[in-house]
């Protein structure tokens, strides 16, 4: 088995009396899509916050790309190849879509202590940025202000920004949130194209998406990882059914074999 790209070891985070992250040890292997699911308040966002460096864990360690990054600030982790998208859409609203992605490219193109040259005419930033927009299907909206994009388009823009640095791991915090069924399905197809190439930690409420995409699933309940395994194992796990899936109105969707086939075809 490959060395994990990201691993946490007994991570603990407390907010006052609340144990938001209770000794969580998870890992993401290179190229795999690892989904993190759990009911509201399970501590998913808190866990992501610690992975990105926005929150400091009270104890435990985080290793990424062979390094202990527990004490590393956010921007330094991003430089190592850990990108994220936000649960609540977070784009630079006063900038165009192309500017947004160009800034993401710029973040990975050395330091930005350059005061005179016009960055908006810098082909080394604009070309890859436009390519990124083409990839997520937003090229025709390149010169639109991010604030004028539809919600779904802003989500796509987020993905383009996360991809700009060619990250080895993407933390996708509810990428389908607020998307229509059709848009979600398109995004699922798009993300599936990265299977085996880019690792993803996917936090998602949309069980359809999770069971279609994930190689492995970890279930978080009250800050604890109660189960971890393949989608089949998770589906069969009685604790999970009890604690989480049982709360759903409908049982988790059956595994769409046909769709899986489509995704594989795209890979080849």
């Amino acid at each position, binding site marked *: 088995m490959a060395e994990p790209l990201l691993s946490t070891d007994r991570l603990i985070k407390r907010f006052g009396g609340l144990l938001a992250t209770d000794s969580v040890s998870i890992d993401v292997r290179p190229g795999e899509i690892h989904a993190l699911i759990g009911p509201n308040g399970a501590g998913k966002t808190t866990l992501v916050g610690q992975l990105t460096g926005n929150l400091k864990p009270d104890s435990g360690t985080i290793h990424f790309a062979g390094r202990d990054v527990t004490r590393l600030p956010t921007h330094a982790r991003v430089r190592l190849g850990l990108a994220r998208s936000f649960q609540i859409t*977070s784009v630079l609203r006063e*900038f165009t879509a192309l500017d947004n992605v160009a*800034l993401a490219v710029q973040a*990975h193109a050395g330091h930005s202590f350059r*005061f005179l*040259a016009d*960055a908006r005419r810098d082909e080394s930033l604009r070309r890859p940025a436009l390519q990124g927009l083409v990839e997520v299907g937003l090229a025709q909206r390149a010169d639109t202000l991010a604030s004028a994009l539809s919600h779904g388009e802003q989500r796509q823009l987020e993905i383009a920004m996360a991809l700009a640095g060619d990250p080895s791991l993407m933390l996708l915090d509810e990428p389908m949130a607020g998307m229509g069924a059709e848009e979600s399905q398109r995004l699922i197809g798009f993300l599936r194209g990265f299977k085996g190439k880019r690792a993803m930690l996917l936090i998602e409420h949309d069980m359809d998406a999770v069971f279609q995409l994930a190689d492995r699933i970890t279930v978080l309940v009250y800050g604890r990882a109660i189960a971890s395994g393949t989608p089949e194992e998770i589906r069969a796990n009685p604790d999970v059914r009890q604690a989480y899936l049982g709360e759903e109105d409908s049982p988790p969707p059956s595994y769409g074999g046909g769709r899986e086939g489509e995704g594989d075809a795209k890979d080849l």
Partner: protein
Amino acid sequence: MMAALRTPRGLITVLLLLILAVLPLLTQAFDQRYLLSIGTRIVIWAIAAISLNMILGYGGMVSFGHAMFFGIGGYAVGILAHHGIASGWIQWPVGIVAAALWAAVIGALSLRTRGLYFIMITLAFAQLVYYLGAGLEAYGGDDGLNISRSRFAGLLDLRDKASFYWLCFALLCGILWFCSRFANSRFGLVIRGAKSNDLRMTALGFPVFRYRLAAFVLSGAFGGLAGILLANEGAYISPAMMSWVKSGDLIVIVVLGGMGTLFGPLYGAIAFFALEESMTPLLDLGRKGWGEYWQIVFGPMLVLVALYAKGGIDSLFGRRHG
């Protein structure tokens, strides 16, 4: 350049710069020397306002202590002059470097805070410098100090009002040019991006704090330059040049002219001084000393700008491109 003339904004800006460029000739022709001294102050304050706009307008950092850089630049000139070091080649770099270093120190401390806390902490540092200046009994304390102007032997005589004005104007043009490049440079976009959404910029991989600090230092250095010019303009330094009222005036000028726009601070400075100069005698018609309170008129105007022209004077000239 020719393209700029086709828009009302471009036309107004070019005309304004042309008038400013020949101001000494105009004031001489019409025998209005006093106007040249107002023009000089406008240009110097515009430089300071542009330097504040770099962090406030582009970077969203509301520094309420920017006049402290007036003081640091001014006192560097004054103190050196007082000790017989009259050469501008020494005074000016010392003043600019001192302002930059001080900006680095207080920036490193204050940029860890946001919003209201940042406003208050910059104000606190400015007050610290103010009282330090007031306590320097050797250099006049509260009363300040008359100084001789910086010497640039053989090159330029700053006692000549027109030469001094043109020097200030040339520096203004240089800073405007720099700012026009800065705004769309990689650095400028990082600063502006962080104003828009600093969490996002951090998540993209930018060490936002470092860029903000660099912008703060740059802004402080230009502010120090304005202080050097101000001390030379009046041949006088005093703590009053860095009182919190002056810091407030600078913010007002930037907001009035248009935050985050290239020429906004210049428009703001012109409007500010034009109002002060016209309102003061108008209110004083009754000879009751009301002129002092010219801001009674100015205040409501500012409220109107805040309510109806959020982009300041700059936004009155039509939409901006880019």
